[in-house]
Structures are given as C-alpha cells and as structure tokens.
C-alpha cells in the first residue's frame, strides 16, 4: 500500500501483513474517548472475542484511578468497558493465564509479553492460542507511591485526579476542574517518586516480541493522542487487526513518515535512558555476600516473590521450596539462593517480586545482580524470542 493514501481504507482494500505499520482508532465513540490513545486496543480485543477468534480476553477491571484487578472474561461489554491506560497498575498477566489452557487475547506491556513467552517455553501457556497485544511501555508506577507523589510533589488530592498522561518527558495529571499539572519525570525520580525502579532500567519499550505492538509514539498531527500506532509483528497480529477491521470495530490508515521516524527515535532515547539507569543502579560492590545477607535478613518466608514471578512456572513442588525448611538456620536461606541461581538466565526484571515483598526487600535489584552478568555473557534475553533458557538447554547427550 502506498504512503500517500491517508484516507480510511475499508476491509476489502487492506490485507494485513506482518511488518506493516498503521495508525488506527476505535469506531465506538465512548471507547475512543476512554481509550489510552484512540481505543484501538480495546476494540481489537472486543472484536476478537465477538468474532470467536478467542474464547476469552484478559482485561483490567478498574476500581479507581490507581487500582484495577486483572480478570479473564468472555463478556464483550466488560472488554469494551476496560479501555484506558492505567500507569499506576503495575500488574503482570502471565501467571493469570498460565495453566488454564485458554484461547485468549490480552493487552501486554513488555514485561507481560516476556512473562507469557517464558511461560510458553515451559508449556504452561500455549502460545499458538494466545494473541498478545503489546503495549509500548515507558514505565508504570506503584499506586501508593503515586498517591504520595500527588500530595507531596503536585500538591493535589489523589481523589481529584481525573486522568493522566506522559508527554515530552513530563508526567501530567489532569484534575476534575480541568487543570493540568506537569512535572518532569527526571525531577520526580530524583525525589524517589515516578516509575518503579525496574521500569527505569527496563529496555523493552516497544514490544516487538508480541503479536502486534501498540502505542501512542509515532502518532502525529491532529491524531496525536486520539489514535494508536500499531506495528504488526506476527501472523496472529495481522489476523487480530484484520478481524477488528472486518468486524467494523476499528479504522486504520498508514502512518506518515515523520511519525515512523519519531517513534523509532523515542524508542532509541528511552532505551538509552534505561541503560543509564542500569549503570546507576548496578554499581560494582565489595562484599556481595554480606550485602545479600543483610538485605534478606528480614524475609518472612511469605513466598509471594515466587508466586508472582511471571517466569517461574514451578508449582508447589519446586527446587527452591524443597531445599528450604523454615526450621533451617542457614545465614541465608536456601530458598533465595536456589531462586537466584534458577532465575539467573530467566529473570526478565519485571519488578513484580519487589512490588509484593511485605518487608520491602529490593528483590528485583538482587535478582538482576545475578541475572545481568549471566544474560549479558550468554547474549540471552529471556522473553524476547523462543530460544530456550541456556541453563535449560545444558542437557546430557544420549
């Protein structure tokens, strides 16, 4: 298709293919309004359900501006109601759909996608039946931190917030009185607010590992903020988009070159920033053993870090728990030692473990201390493709 055709195409004129890029939006006005940038993702998910491409969809059921709970639903209306980006909902969907044998479509930030792919490698998710709608992701925030940030930095009441967006490096909150309040993310993060630590050094900004990658980067001109930029990255992605067009749920057009270039530039800048953060957080240290022992001494053995880890697919019986008994008096528990090693090649740095640790151990930082050198040396990035985890592949020849 030619770049000059800025008009809306009908279903018959377009045959979606892997590698193509579009800008699109929902045909439903309310979804478009509530959507993060045009409601395309929501409409695509709803169309997949309605046209029986899938049996179920994962959505975030919104509780308030700062809270939502992921659920699996087969109700098209529930899907349509879920439109909108919640930057203060740092959930991960991989474990939710694991071991359920679903034919499912779901939105997915980079870390969701990586978790899902890793679960796929471990046969806990059938990737052929999973339609992954990737979302570009500049980062998510912990809701408790966000509320405090609103009060301390923005001097606004969390209850007065109506919406929020990220633009040109600024985090902007809109209050119910229609006013906008903006502060640069750099300033927020310097003061300990802003994105979760793992998001700061996360380097997957456009999830090309999903079936289709969606975001607002690259949407220019009048459409900015009102449309979603999509890149089709697999056959399944093409099917999803085509299905939504055919069902009359979305409209698309070709992006302009400026948009494509801008998107790629922002991606580069964000990745660079991620690398900078990584160097800042992971400074070399002496006496690693004492550092780990000290960080872990408050562990109360709740097991949440394992339960929530999107790449771990061990059930109740697993190496880390079988070698561990609460009556052991080791200076550092076997549970953690086994997990650090077991996840060295698989940790995707999603930050879930640190989020849920009841004694605030900066777990992701600890896991990444093991994972960074291993994954760099082995040139292996878990969750980015279907390569098996290197440690997994070290099998005896028979």
């Amino acid at each position, binding site marked *: 298709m030619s770049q000059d055709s800025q008009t809306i195409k009908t279903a018959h004129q377009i045959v979606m293919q892997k590698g193509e890029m579009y800008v699109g939006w929902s045909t439903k006005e309310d979804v478009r309004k509530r959507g993060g940038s045009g409601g395309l993702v929501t409409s695509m998910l709803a169309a997949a359900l309605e046209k029986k491409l899938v049996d179920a969809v994962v959505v975030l059921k919104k509780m308030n501006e700062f809270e939502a709970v992921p659920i699996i639903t087969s109700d098209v209306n529930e899907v349509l109601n879920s439109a909108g980006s919640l930057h203060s909902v740092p959930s991960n969907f991989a474990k939710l759909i694991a071991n359920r044998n679903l034919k499912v479509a779901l939105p997915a930030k980079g870390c969701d996608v990586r978790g899902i792919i890793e679960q796929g490698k471990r046969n806990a998710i059938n990737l052929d039946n999973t339609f992954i709608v990737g979302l570009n992701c500049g980062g998510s925030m912990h809701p408790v931190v966000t509320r405090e940030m609103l009060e301390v930095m923005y001097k606004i009441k969390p209850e007065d917030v109506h919406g929020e967006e990220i633009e040109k490096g600024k985090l902007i909150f809109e209050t119910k009185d229609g006013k906008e309040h903006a502060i640069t993310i750099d300033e927020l993060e310097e003061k300990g607010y802003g994105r979760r630590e793992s998001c700061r050094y996360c380097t997957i900004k456009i999830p090309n590992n999903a079936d289709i990658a969606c975001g607002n980067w690259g949407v220019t001109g009048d459409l900015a903020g009102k449309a979603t930029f999509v890149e089709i990255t697999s056959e399944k992605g093409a099917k999803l988009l085509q299905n939504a067009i055919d069902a009359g749920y979305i409209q698309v057009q070709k992006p302009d070159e400026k948009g494509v270039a801008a998107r790629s530039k922002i991606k580069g800048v964000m990745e660079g920033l991620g690398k900078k953060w990584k160097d800042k957080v992971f400074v070399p240290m002496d006496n690693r053993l004492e550092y780990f022992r000290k960080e872990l001494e408050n562990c109360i053995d709740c097991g949440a870090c394992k339960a929530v880890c999107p790449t771990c697919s061990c059930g109740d019986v697993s190496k880390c728990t079988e070698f561990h008994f609460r009556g052991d008096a080791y200076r550092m528990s076997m549970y953690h030692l086994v997990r650090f090693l077991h996840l060295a090649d698989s940790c995707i740095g999603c930050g879930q473990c640190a989020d849920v640790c009841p004694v*605030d151990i900066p777990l992701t930082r600890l896991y990444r201390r093991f994972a960074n050198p291993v994954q760099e040396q082995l040139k292996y990035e878990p969750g980015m493709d279907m390569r098996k985890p290197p440690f997994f592949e070290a099998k005896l020849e028979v």
Partner: protein
Amino acid sequence: MNAYSTICPGCNFGCGLYIRENGTIDLDFRKSSPANAGKLCRFGMSLPRLYKPVKSMVEGKETTPEEAAKEAARRISASKGSVAFLSLGNTTCEEVLAFQKLAVPYLCTGANFDALPKDVYLTLSVGIPYTEIEAAKHIVLFIDPYEQYPLTVRRLLSAKKKGAKITSVWWKDLPLADENIRPADISKLQLTKDSLVISDFHPLSDAEQVKSVLSLAKNAGAKVTFLKPFANSTGAYVLSKDAKQKSFAQLVEDINKGTVKTLFCLESDPSTLIPSETLSKLTNLIIQTGHASAGTAKANVVIAHEPLYRKKGTLINNEGRGQALGGAGTNGLEALGIIAGTKFEFDSLHDAVKKALGIQAVDEFLIPKYDRPAYGAIQAAAKPPEAKTTLVSVYNPFMWFGLPDDNDFVELNLNTVRALKLLKGGTLKIKSNGSTIEKKFKVAPVQDNILLTGNRFGIEKGSITPVEISR
C-alpha cells in the same frame, strides 16, 4: 470470573487484597491498599487454604442455612439462661451490631476487659496510624513483628531508615532491633516521651503483662499502641464499648462450671482458644461462619453463610481505618435475624456504624478521629516465669485460625544445644505435665532456657509453659 476487593482476616492489620473466584480461589495483590500497599504476609498468601467451603449442618446432617438457623434458634431458646454468645472480631461491624442484639444475655468479644481498668478500654481497642509508627523516634517492641503481625515489619524498617532506634523486649534478638532486652531484664528499658511502645492484646493476653506495658508507657509519657489478632477486633471492641460484656476467661470458667451449656459462635472457631475438654462439656456448640474449620467439624449446628470476602460491610483495622468489603452478601445478617426473631436491614446497621465512628462514608484513605483518653496510674504485678525452662507460644495468625503451617519445630539457642548435646538435624524431647513430645529445633539467638514456638503442640498451658527438655 468474579473478583472481590477484600481485607485479609488474618489479623487486625487490615491488609487489602483481591480474591478471584473461578472454580478455585486465587488471590491478587491490591497494591493501592493504604495499610499494606498490596503486600501480604505468609498467612495472607495462604488465604486460599483458609477459605475452605463450609456446609450448613445439624448434628452432622446437611441442611440449608435457613433450617440450620431455625434449629439454632430453637436450641438457644430451649437453653435460656445458659447460652453464651462469642464473636472474636472476625466479621463486619454491621454483623457485630446485629449480634449484640442477640447476645444481650451473655456477650463475649473474646477480650478480658474485666481484668483491666475501665479507662484503658479505648487505648486497648484502637491503635495509632501506621504513619505514626514510621515517624517515631524510638520504638519499643513487646511483640515479635516477624511472626505475629508481619506487615508491621516494613513500617518499622521505614522508621529505622528515618533514624528511629528500635528496642525489642523479647526472648529472641530481632534482626531489625538496635537493642535487644530480655523480658526478665525489663528494668533496663529506658523510655522517654519520644518512645512509642508496641504491644498486643488478644484473648489469651496476660492481664498483668498488659497492665505492666500500660504503666511503663504512662510513667514515661510514651505513646502506646496495641496490635490485635482479628480482622475487625477494633470494630468489635469499639462498638461494644457500652455493651455489657463477659470476659473470655469468664466464658471458659462458666463452661467448665456448667452454667453455660450452649455456645453460639459468630465467625469464630472456639477450638483454637478453648481447650477441648472444656468444649466437650457443652450441650450445644453452634457456629455461624463462612469457612470450614476444626470448630465446624465439632459443632452440633453449623450455619454456613458467605465467606468474609463475599460479604458486604465494614471492617475497622488497627489504626481505626474503616474499610469496606467488596462483596454484596448479607446472608449472615439474615441468619442472625432468624435466630433473633427479627429482620436486620443492612442499611440501617451501616448507618449506625457510621454514626458510631462519626463519619459520613467509609473511606479507606481516611482515618476517623478516636478518643484515646489518658488513663490513670496502674499497678502491675507481672511475674517472670519461675520454671528453669519454658516453652513460649508466639501467637500468630496460623495459630488463631488453626491453619497448618511449615513450623513444626522450636527455636532455642546454641548453649542449650551444647548443654543437651543435641545433634544437628536431630530432635529434642519436651516434657510437660506428664506428656512428652519430640520436635525438630532451630538454632536462633534466643534467651537461655527458652524455647519459642509459633505452633501448637498440645502440651501448652497458656502462652508460657514450664517444660523439661532432653536429647
């Protein structure tokens, strides 16, 4: 897929979470919950195990909740004068108010307020906001936060980061404490008006110990806060302030004496608190609850209603924070209505709860103001145990709920291991009142001659049991 925004019943910390139902139960982290930022302790993570479905039963025969409630009503009226009503604080404020109407002849919230001065009632009932823990300069712990109220740990660590000094008065050194004082050396404790004392208050608390903590705080002008073990302990106590209550100790005595023959329990498993010899003296044990427990297996009548997470209603956490449960269920109130011979309307009970708290709406982000009036001087006579070796039971959520945990061992120190020539990986014999048990042990920085356990072994006599130990 149903998802409920709810509160963990494991203790009165008030940790928010989601429970999802889809054939099985699983949980998710409610990260915006102000009490816990979505984080859960070992018990919170075990909730799918706690919420075992329960069926309505009369003498072992399955029936409907309505029939079970009618049968309960018959038995209660037949044993008029010898009925006691127990609700420990595991249910909503609205049910607490309905329950009070039913329980006029013999209300027991499981606390022993009788043994304590009247003017400490509210100090014991409502704690301080957790942000005040984080802002304290000096914190004195009379609990093991890791075992007993785990979500306190992060508040303590946050206080420490801001420069607080933490003193622990406990049988074991705690990793987060800057100073560890053994309970017997309490005279070494230095309190000032900048100190915050954290202790706990529960059905098995030693009244003299509670008085001693209150008096230490009073004499130094220090702040004091008591943590409590049930999801709505604060609500149950605050709302029962002006009601005529019997103490828990009295209830046990009355069952033993035979003056209480029928015990009605609302969302409370008496088998975790009352010795089985005592319980077996009852003619009627009636339990109304939302999940199965050891108690429901023993009860003559079980009235099954929704589990807590499916209920509608209000809980009040240890800070006094009102928290709305995310369910819609009110069949607990319906059953209470059948027993009381009336109909309880949720809305009017809810209004009464708001009125009692002086609030317009339940908002988990706002803590209502509570009176915690100054109390008078207290004489305390806490006695250190006399026996050479003692087994100390460290009450924790698993024990209050009778839920099994990976804790079949005792903690003791290296001196004890050496003195008894215990073998690594081996066991220890513990003798008390003629029975002997054999347990694995864990070496920990525990006081000499003390064994700590977070489990119930069946040989205990209260929280401190004199024992003899050998290899």
